């Protein structure tokens, strides 16, 4: 089993499972780095890795939320639009409302939570597939972002600069925050009652219900968490870009799902790991950076990205079988 979530507690076989879980991803990552280091002059450098570390926090946060959502056999297609909405709230608050930064940030987080609450409550109240509810939210949130900003990018200047300028050991605050969220979320997933409930709901929701636990508040919590992490990502991006673009996040939903699935999380629910999703994000980031460093043509980038996505899940399938046959 490649599934860290469901039984990371055995002490004995833990090492072996770690290997099965992260070896494949680590190797894939190393291979990509190697290829790009050989084909460009400046790729293999500290700067490149700092650059990547600086760029991926928002993708990591979104992927973490998506991992939780996929774990409970849900899906969230609205993450990109909700990012746009939250960024719009923060940007309009700062640029038009001249709010103090903390208030604007809080408003942004509230917007993310509200979107998550909509997704969770509507899909649970009427028992609708989250695919379609979050697809509706995708349109609604984007409309909201354009409505708030009147389709104009909001320049926020250095109001949020401290967020991106704080560094520790050469790593930016957002990256450290994203790392903390990944580790914390992984710990929750593998070590806490809540984490077990997530896995259980994704595996057999009816059985959870019959065992006397109401899955609904847990599912709503997951969508809220996803919304909150997206809002955090929006705050970070607004700080990085010093501006709030209502189109921010277009297409992030499929990218995030791709990253999470490359990490080995199942779209059917019940199987997944936040740390693996982190690797998935890294792989896509290295791929993007490397292809840009090579100066590949756009169609090449797309072809390679598409093939890497498919290849990654095929490899995951084999790895999964390998660790299954020797339990």
């Amino acid at each position, binding site marked *: *089993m490649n*599934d860290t*979530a*469901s*039984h990371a*507690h*055995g002490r004995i076989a833990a090492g072996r499972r770690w290997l099965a879980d992260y070896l494949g991803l680590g190797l894939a990552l190393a291979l990509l780095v190697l290829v790009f280091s050989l084909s460009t002059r400046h790729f293999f450098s500290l700067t490149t890795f700092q650059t990547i570390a600086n760029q991926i926090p928002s993708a990591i946060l979104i992927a973490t939320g998506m991992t939780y959502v996929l774990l409970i056999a849900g899906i969230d297609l609205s993450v990109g639009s909700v990012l746009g909405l939250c960024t719009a709230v923060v940007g309009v608050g700062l640029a038009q409302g001249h709010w103090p930064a903390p208030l604007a940030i809080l408003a942004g987080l509230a917007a993310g939570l509200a979107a998550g609450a909509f997704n969770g409550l509507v899909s649970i109240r009427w028992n609708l597939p989250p695919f379609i509810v979050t697809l509706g939210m995708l349109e609604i949130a984007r409309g909201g972002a354009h409505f708030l900003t009147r389709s104009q990018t909001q320049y926020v200047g250095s109001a949020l600069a401290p967020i991106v300028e704080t560094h520790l050991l050469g790593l930016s605050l957002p990256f450290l925050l994203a790392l903390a969220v990944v580790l914390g979320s992984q710990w*929750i997933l593998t*070590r*806490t*009652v*809540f984490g*077990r409930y997530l*896995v*259980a709901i*994704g*595996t*057999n929701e*009816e*059985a*959870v219900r*019959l*065992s*006397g*636990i*109401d899955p609904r508040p847990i599912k709503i919590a997951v969508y809220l968490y996803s919304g909150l992490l997206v809002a955090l990502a929006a705050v970070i991006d607004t700080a990085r870009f010093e501006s709030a673009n209502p189109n921010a996040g277009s297409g992030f939903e499929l990218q995030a799902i791709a990253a999470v699935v490359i990490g080995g999380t199942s779209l059917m629910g*019940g*199987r997944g790991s936040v740390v693996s999703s982190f690797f998935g994000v890294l792989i896509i980031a290295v791929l993007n950076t490397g292809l840009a460093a090579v100066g590949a043509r756009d169609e090449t980038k797309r072809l390679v990205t598409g093939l890497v996505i498919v290849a990654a899940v095929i490899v995951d399938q084999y790895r999964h079988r390998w660790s299954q046959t020797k*339990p």
Partner: protein
Amino acid sequence: MPGMTRPADTPLLLRTAGLTKDYATRVLDSVDLEILEGEVHALVGENGAGKSTLARILAGLIRPDAGHIELAGEPYAPSGKRQAEAQGVRMVMQELNVIGRLTVAESIFFGHLPHRWGAIDYPGLHRAARPLMDQVGLSDVAPDRPLETLGVGRQQMVEIAAALSRQCRLLILDEPTAALTAPEIERLFDQIRRLGQQGVSFLYISHRMEEIQRISDRISVLRDGRLLTTRGAAGFGLDEVVRLMVGRPLEETRLAASRPPNGPALRVDGLAAPPALRHASFELRFGEILGLAGLMGAGRTEMLRAIFGADRRAAGRICLRGSSAPARIDHPRDAVRQGIALLTEDRKAQGLLLPLSVLANVTLNHLRPFCRAGGRIQAAAERRAVEQWLDQLGVRCRSPLQPVAELSGGNQQKVLMARWLHRNCDILLLDEPTRGIDVGARFEIHRLLRQGADQGRAILMASSDLRELLGVCDRIGVMSAGRWVATFDRNTCSQDDLLHAALSGYTRTHP
């Protein structure tokens, strides 16, 4: 301890009055049931009589439409399972309800995982799970083993362990033994007796009459949602119980073959599909019913699946119809084309298309007779054919267009039987064909099997119920620890012989 009676002044634990529940029809009709403290109260009735519905109401999973319940003299109206459990009523559901991705220990304590600030105390959890697992015979299983790697029977034992994990006053067991074999059943009975001595009451639902006779203090009979009677088990003959349940007497005689078997149908040589199936060789002839006995996890299911092409084989030859050339079976499709059918162990997950109609379920794999140009299905011809089958097998349903999900278990099983008969398969592999099926329906299925064999079909039937095997089969093979260890003639063997053979694989050391 058959017929063990309690003194008349045993206090009442639970009483229902006028309990009524309607779905599309009335399922429970003003049921007045009384359960005494510390008794094992058996509840029997045909499929669809309302037993599980009654149990679910008591366990707080659904609410009655009318009537009320008292628990130890207090009004009892649980709003959900948790509240019922808080008041000491727990239940093991009829359908397996496991969360495969959890570990055994997590499953046992699911809903009550020991934690501090939300973080699970795994050492404590495993310590607490160990004795419970030992009690139900899971001592060789690690507490952190994922549940999905266990067979169905052991998953059922985990559910029972979960029910035992907490203090309770009333434990409802809804067909707990349907997936179990003799040794596990003994272990379960030991636990029931132990807890009974501590004053715990049991509501025990089963279709296996001999178990009821052995374990229960009193028996209630439910028919069409009405409680017909509650009597002490001592003076309550089984024949009478069955007569009340079914509404007519059932002579459970041995069904004997009317003529000797014909030619060979299936010869299996050295079949293996590790780890569950190590070695199986046997021969099945047309016109006979070959039984297949074994303990839980003996590999019977795996062997049937391997023959059928549902799983990969590692070794072995399968020859059909007396031919000496091995048959090519790489996919269930190949098996069916050569006249082999498999009635799966889990009819809901692996057999039925639950939301679809009875009609679509019967004709699924053989639409050719109704096929016109362009693959068009001639609806009228299809319906006529299906109605014929439903008639012939005595399937009770409103119309062939009723969703098969709405049928009772026995009738669902007959629908699957109709599918294979309609497909003209003459080599039938049946995996637990009567699991969870009431005595009446079970008898009808036995009669159908006998009739099928008499018409020249070859039948291989795995069952965990030794009495059933001895009742219907001509010969009985036994598997143990993945090997086919013996084959008996039914006239010259006893339950003890079969059990002995079934255990042999676990004592002998393998090379």
